């Protein structure tokens, strides 16, 4: 059964049909990429899944559960993590604090225990720090642990965002253009991490990406979105040869004739 299943998703903003009946199935453990020209509606799919938008029609289910019944803050608990195209970090907090916020859904101690910082609150704090350290080790963020996020370079901030999402221990990780703003070396590392995220952590990565080298190298399956419709889906090799896809990216061949 599909982990994340999107059926016939429709949403309009004013007169613009951002999504016009998109259906996707993401299976457990596959690296799924969504590509398409600017403004095709890729991020909108994520925003509907995260429940920032309520679609006009269609269904989104995650492990059989109807996501459209939930509020934005309830989605995380199911195991859906997300990173953003234009970094949404807590800039005035340290890297450690940012990552610990990924553990928020697991923190159960009451307000009084936290006010005394004793008993359960203290135990939880230490226990979750251990998990945060694992994530820091995984992404090699040790030197930045106690630095304020706002003072870090762009590429590192992207990683902190990824770390925060991983701290959630999600089943699925929605990555919105992680590679943007990264240099070649960082993108190279990212490629390996995406594979590690699946293999070592057992998380299913879903990418919205513009970097075709990255997409073609890591994805198992690719969906191409254009003007709110899915125009192609398949393995990287199939997508590269698809006439519709070439047309969407480069324009009609007739136009040049």
């Amino acid at each position, binding site marked *: 059964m599909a982990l994340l299943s999107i059926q016939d998703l429709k949403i309009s903003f004013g007169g613009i049909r951002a999504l016009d009946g998109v259906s996707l199935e993401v299976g457990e453990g596959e690296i799924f990429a969504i590509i398409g020209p600017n403004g095709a509606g890729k991020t909108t799919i994520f925003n509907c899944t995260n429940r920032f938008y309520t679609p006009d029609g269609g269904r989104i289910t995650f492990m059989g559960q109807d996501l459209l019944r939930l509020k934005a*803050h309830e989605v*995380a608990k199911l195991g859906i993590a997300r990173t*953003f195209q234009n970094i949404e970090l807590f800039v005035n907090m340290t890297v450690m604090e940012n990552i610990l916020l990924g553990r928020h859904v697991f923190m159960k101690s009451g*307000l009084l225990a*936290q006010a005394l910082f004793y008993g359960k609150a203290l135990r939880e*704090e230490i226990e979750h*720090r251990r998990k945060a350290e694992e994530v820091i080790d995984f992404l090699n963020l040790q030197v930045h642990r106690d630095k304020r996020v706002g003072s870090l370079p762009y590429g590192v901030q992207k990683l902190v965002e990824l770390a925060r999402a991983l701290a*959630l221990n999600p089943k699925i990780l929605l990555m919105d253009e992680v590679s943007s703003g990264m240099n070649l070396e960082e993108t190279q590392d990212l490629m390996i991490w995406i594979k590690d995220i699946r293999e070592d952590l057992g998380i299913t990565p879903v990418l919205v990406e513009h970097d075709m080298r990255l997409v073609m190298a890591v994805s198992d399956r690719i969906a191409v979105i254009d003007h709110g419709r899915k125009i192609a889906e398949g393995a990287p090799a199939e997508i590269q040869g698809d006439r519709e896809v070439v047309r969407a990216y480069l324009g009609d061949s007739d136009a040049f004739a």
Partner: protein
Amino acid sequence: MYLRESYSRDLRIFDEFHKWGWLALLAIVLVVLSQAGGNYPAYMLNLIFINVIIAVGLNLLTGFTGLMSLGHAAFMSIGAYASVILTTKLGISFWLALPLSGAMAGLIGFLVGLPSLRLTGIYLALATMAFEFITDEIILQWPALTGGAGGLSASPPVLGKFPFNSYQRYFFITFTCMAIVLFSTKNLLRADFGRALMAIRDSQTAAEVMGIHPARYKTLSFSLSALYTGLAGGLYAHFILFISPDNFTLLHSIGFIVMIVVGGLGSVAGSVMGAVFLTILPEAITFGKDYLPLALRKAAGLQAAVYGIVLILFVIFEPRGLYGRWVKIKIWWRTFPL
């Protein structure tokens, strides 16, 4: 320099244990100053501690959660009136009335916090300002309960046979309350609750994706902030022993904001510094007045004008407040010969 060997060490309020010693020494100095220094220092210390509680409460809301309030004088008046009415009209002991007045303000804070789920920035400031005027009007129009413009008298609290009827004695009550507020706030802020508040302040979108319930934390922050301020109101009422609407005006609300901006938004230590500064400032104005030209000395609104100038100067030259300046001085000394 020290090395951290465990997470529990990493989590401490003070990285090195001897700093607690300095704090204890400061407490001893304050006790000696209040008990042996005569009436005036004891009076000032009480006032400072009450303002510290308010500043910490307001900073929790504005500095840490990013929500503005121009209604904190109203929360203070609710706490003050509740405590006096409970003790004088219902005969409830001060020791029970004080937490109850805090709880009362907290409950109303929860209700006032509800609009904050939709409003931010200047609009929230206006909504809370409206709350301030409404509270003021209710107090004025309900003389049977509140004494109206004439105000209410309170009597000093008594513990067993021991009355807290002087500034020196009352010092111990305000000091204890402030210590509890500071300790619990510091703890909340280094735990999940505090991080959730700051997360909402820095990016509500990301906070929601992390599973933080914004409505819950915003209203909780409002509640807790109002609770502290109400508690301070109750303490204030039984300290000056007479309250009237004049003690809780919009200018007071603005004064609280000046406190946290001057002290440092988003810092507990800054709240303390700001409260100390802003409690001493009016006294300094009173003393300094005599040296001003006659026309200025008599001018109405001198205090408000000085508040305004201080606020503007801080926003321009030290937006991180006194606390930010303090941190810079510390770094300067650590790297001194450089």
